């Protein structure tokens, strides 16, 4: 009823090309951002911020990274976890080598290392397509995991073999390490994720984003239109891996506080993959929806037995959530391969045409 675009006329191409051409969407986004930036840090509990919101944002960023590669450029990757790892280890090395460098700069710089590694492992994509490529990204995953274990230099030869986040301050406020409050960490991640999402949206609607989608939809035609597969594919790998790398660095520095190689194992690659599938391939909104769904669903499932005073083992709920997520992946692939994001859009379309059910 309120979601109508009637009366909103675009008078310039610039207006028409805006990210959110419909006024209600813009208002909605502003409200969401206002809640995220202003309300949540004040009212939400530490647990909600540090165990739900922070992981959600980290995974949303990683999902954006994978979605750029998979949903927009059409290159299937199972190496997300390892690329996140490259970001995390780079961040650790950078901040221990240059302890005085601003931590935000370090976080953003560390993405470049994973972008570089992403390009190297993206090289086969020039000759290999589809499932074959997916399997070669497994090579990246396992080889990098091995490096994280075997190359002691990466974790400063710690006895524990783990990277431990040192405390870093920004304007006298601890932003990493145990003394950083959840609110501080949350706001920093939120800012980084918001800005990086905007940047991704900008790139995706421009020439470069279009060249990725061209390669995805029909690589031969794209090449005949003058897109160079070399640049398009490698830039997609670089861009995607940059996002994954920053997400990995944020994961360790702003959330876990320390990490062993398991934090970047193949299961994380799959976790992010599920987020992209369920959220919707080729949709940035979908990345947030998918991340929220996959991360929050088990948390909710875990809260059900106590709420109903049922004596169900935590482990049982764990298995059930695995079944549910698996079944939902199949369900979405069958019913709506474009995931939650498409359902959301369909819902909005219904609102626009309400009360006429069949108008386009």
């Amino acid at each position, binding site marked *: 009823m309120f979601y109508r675009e009637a009366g909103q006329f675009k008078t310039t191409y610039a207006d028409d090309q805006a990210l959110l051409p419909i006024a209600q969407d813009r208002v909605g986004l502003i409200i969401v951002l206002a809640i995220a930036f202003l309300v949540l840090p004040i*009212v*939400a*509990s*530490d*647990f*909600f911020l*540090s*165990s739900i919101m922070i*992981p959600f944002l980290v995974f949303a960023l990683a999902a954006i990274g994978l979605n750029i590669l998979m949903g927009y450029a059409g290159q299937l990757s199972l190496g997300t976890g390892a690329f996140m790892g490259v970001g995390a280890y780079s961040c650790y090395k950078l901040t*221990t080598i240059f302890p005085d460098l601003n931590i935000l700069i370090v976080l953003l710089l560390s993405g470049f290392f994973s972008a570089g590694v992403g390009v190297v492992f993206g090289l086969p994509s020039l000759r290999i397509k589809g499932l074959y490529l997916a399997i070669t990204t497994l090579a990246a995953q*396992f080889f990098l995991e*091995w490096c994280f*274990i075997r190359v002691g230099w990466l974790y*400063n030869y*710690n*006895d*524990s*073999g*783990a990277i*431990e986040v*040192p*405390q870093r301050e920004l304007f006298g406020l*601890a932003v990493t*390490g*145990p*003394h950083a409050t959840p609110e501080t960490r949350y706001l920093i991640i939120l800012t980084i994720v918001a800005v990086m999402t905007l940047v991704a949206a900008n790139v995706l609607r421009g020439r470069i984003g279009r060249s990725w989608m061209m390669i995805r939809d029909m690589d031969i035609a794209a090449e005949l239109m003058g897109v160079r597969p070399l640049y398009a594919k490698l830039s997609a790998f670089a861009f995607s891996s940059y996002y994954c790398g920053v997400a990995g660095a944020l994961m360790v520095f702003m*959330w*876990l*506080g*320390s*990490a*062993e*190689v*398991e*934090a970047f*194992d193949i299961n994380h690659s799959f976790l992010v993959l599920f987020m992209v599938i369920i959220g919707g391939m080729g949709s940035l909104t979908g990345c947030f929806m998918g991340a929220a769904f996959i991360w929050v669903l088990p*948390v*909710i499932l*875990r*809260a*059900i037995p*106590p*709420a*109903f005073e049922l004596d169900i*083992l*935590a*482990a049982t*709920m*764990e*298995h059930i959530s695995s079944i549910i997520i698996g079944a939902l992946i199949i369900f979405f692939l069958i019913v709506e391969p474009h995931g939650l994001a498409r359902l959301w859009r369909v819902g909005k379309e219904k609102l626009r045409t309400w009360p006429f059910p069949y108008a386009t």
Partner: protein
Amino acid sequence: MNLKKLSCTAIAAAAMVVGLPIAQAEDSLFMPSLTYRTGPFAGGGTPFADGYADYFNMLNERDGGIGGAKIVVEECETAYNTQKGVECYEATKDKGALAYSPLSTGITLALIPKASVDEIPVFSMGYGLSAAAIGEKFPWTFVYPTTYWNQLSSILKYIDANGGLDGKKVGFIYLDVGYGKEPLPLLEKLSASLGFEVAKYPVGVKEMQNQSAQWLNVRKERPDWMIMWGWGAMNPTAVKEAAKIRYPLDRFIGNWWAGSHNDLNAVGKSGKGYLAANFSGIGQDFPAVQDILTHVVDKGNSKVASRDDVGNVLYNRGMFNAVVLAEAIHVAQQKTGKTVITGADMRDGLENINIDEARLKELGLEGFSAPVKGTCSDHEGAGAVFLQQWNGEDWEKITDLIEPDNDTVRPLLEEAAEKYVSDKPDWQGQTCS
């Protein structure tokens, strides 16, 4: 689903967001239990979690709790996964958690800095960071009864007593993660001072069940002894592979996470002779274990699959974890005079713990383990371990307690602790008189 339950859920959800403290019963003691009944290591996590929960439940049933306060055990499933472990920590710490036993090196490393800020002790019993034995540097972390490093020195002592170490070759097969690599620095230092050679055989987590290459190398290099830092599916596979290449199993010694019933039941007769270190008693022949059977298991309040599982190596170890924590609560209650204590009180309790032989007997655990005694600077106790041997069907204790070589190990631990805090300028230590 009726309306009342629905509204309960909604309120719980809202409470979760804004973090209203979910009311705990007054005068109760909240003990979170980070379990891993799922995931690749579930086989070991399940009996441990059962023993832990059953002991506290037994105290509730038999004694009405500790000092009159009931113990509330809340399980949170980590699947041995660091992220979920951190989540469990965040979810339970505000409910008045008294101590955490993270049960995975990864989670332990993540919690050590967090818990010290939140003033909740971390009790990583015989795992985690060996350097945490140094109380001056790690006021909030405890590793009773002993560390990996001291355990290794005990094992080496046993080898030395059975044919000498000098000039020998010792193979070290380990899970290629932080846990398995933990004792490497000590092993290398001791090999130089004791004059033995070390051959290392890492086993990747993904290759746990595919160890033939490592054992082929063992066959080639013929070490005189093998020591294993293994966990989960790695252990039975290793013992099977060792038997396959006809390595003498009585020269193959696992650490205390590589010597449970779960590991060797799968191997059966072919694992006969394999040795493992242990610090907690085996079997049901302890009054405390009998009490668990009467008060918890037989009443159907335990999660164990069968009554026979009680008394297994890992079950008893989980129980021992609870014993130490219960004792710490007891000490803290006596020191403060309060029934309901805080994390900080708990820390004092742990630091002043003293489970000597008389106390073990009182607890119904005579001969169960070496005495556990802590001080401000010693968060480890440098307890002794014994060796047990698999007879094809069950574990048998074959040695007396073997004291570690703490004089050698302690300075190395101090060095490691120093290194840990060196790049953390804001680290809070404590001074011990």
